[in-house]
């Protein structure tokens, strides 16, 4: 198996660690991913991103072209009719492929239930040390820097989406079974990624990162 490692990319000077209270390795994934694709001469990288997650992801093709620098040009995407995919590319370019682009958060949970897929415990309700920062509930960890007024408390939470520990907000939840989670998702008033600090950095945070090569 080929593994692209953010830590190695940082050690090699390919990616940099951010500094300060909001430091995260989220963007360090970009050069790591592009470098791994380039080194292995991959033609395509498959991902589980979905259009319903976020407003820039809502614009994605199933078969999405990336140029020689791994960049996405959302203003100039290729036509994609029916289920015909255009795999034509020049040397050094690649595709990002999103087979479950049209699935919703609810579809995912119903599929997991139907196929009885095992999941990491983080998705289910559990007690955890957390820090409340703005509207988000961040997990306490050695990788987080507390602001002077912030304190660590214990709360019953689960994760609706899982990214880096430093930017993924938990949700208050008692949902400990699949049925419980499905009911919770059906009644949700906030979006799945609403607690992701990486999307909140600016209005176009996801689009900007995707243009640079983020998944």
């Amino acid at each position, binding site marked *: 198996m080929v593994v692209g490692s953010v830590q190695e990319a940082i050690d090699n000077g390919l990616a940099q660690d951010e500094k300060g209270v909001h430091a995260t390795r989220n963007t360090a994934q970009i050069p790591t991913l592009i470098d791994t694709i380039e080194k292995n001469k991959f033609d395509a990288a498959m991902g589980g991103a979905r*259009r*319903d997650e*976020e*407003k*820039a992801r*809502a*614009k994605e*093709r199933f078969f999405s072209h990336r140029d020689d620098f791994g960049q996405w040009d*959302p*203003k100039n*995407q290729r*036509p*994609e*009719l*029916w289920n015909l995919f255009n795999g034509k590319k020049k040397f050094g370019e690649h595709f990002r492929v999103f087979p479950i*682009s*049209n699935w*919703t958060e*609810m579809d995912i949970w*119903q599929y997991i239930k139907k196929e009885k897929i095992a999941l990491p415990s983080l998705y289910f309700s559990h007690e955890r040390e957390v820090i409340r920062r703005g509207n988000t509930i961040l997990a306490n960890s050695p990788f987080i820097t507390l602001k002077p007024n912030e304190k660590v408390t214990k709360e019953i939470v689960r994760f609706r989406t899982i990214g880096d520990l430093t930017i993924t907000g938990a949700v208050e939840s008692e949902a400990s079974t699949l049925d419980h989670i499905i009911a919770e998702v059906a009644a*949700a*008033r*906030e*979006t799945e990624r*609403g607690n992701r600090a990486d999307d909140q950095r600016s*209005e*176009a945070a996801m*689009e*900007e990162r995707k243009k640079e090569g983020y998944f």
Partner: protein
Amino acid sequence: MKGELLRFTTAGSVDDGKSTLIGRLLYDSKSIFQDQLAAIENTSKKKGLDEIDFSLLTDGLKDEREQGITIDVAYRYFNTPNRKFIIADTPGHIQYTRNMVTGASTANAALILIDARNGVIEQTKRHSYIASLLQIPHVLVCINKMDLVDYQTI
């Protein structure tokens, strides 16, 4: 979720109100999440608008928001107790017709918008022709911006 899937697309000339209609439809059917609504409210205020600009819900790209037009097709999902829907909100601008075709190719129904002030114009005809070429089984014509002609019939 039970029930069939209906996929529909918007069509019609630039600025006829396609994205606004979709945003409004999602708002009225309570399919917009609180944080999404807060975000587009905030952006509308920053643009100096008194009301929420519902086109911001599908016009998610930076350039679309700066130029006030749809550039590429955006997909949105919602459901009622009986049905699931996938909406493709497509651009009206002639330059982006290929993106309209992309969205329309998988649709079972097309909503063709017409600005009451302009009537049927070049892009309305082009999009209608594309809908027919793609054999989209259901086509609905929506007359929009009737407020701007004092709801008169001519």
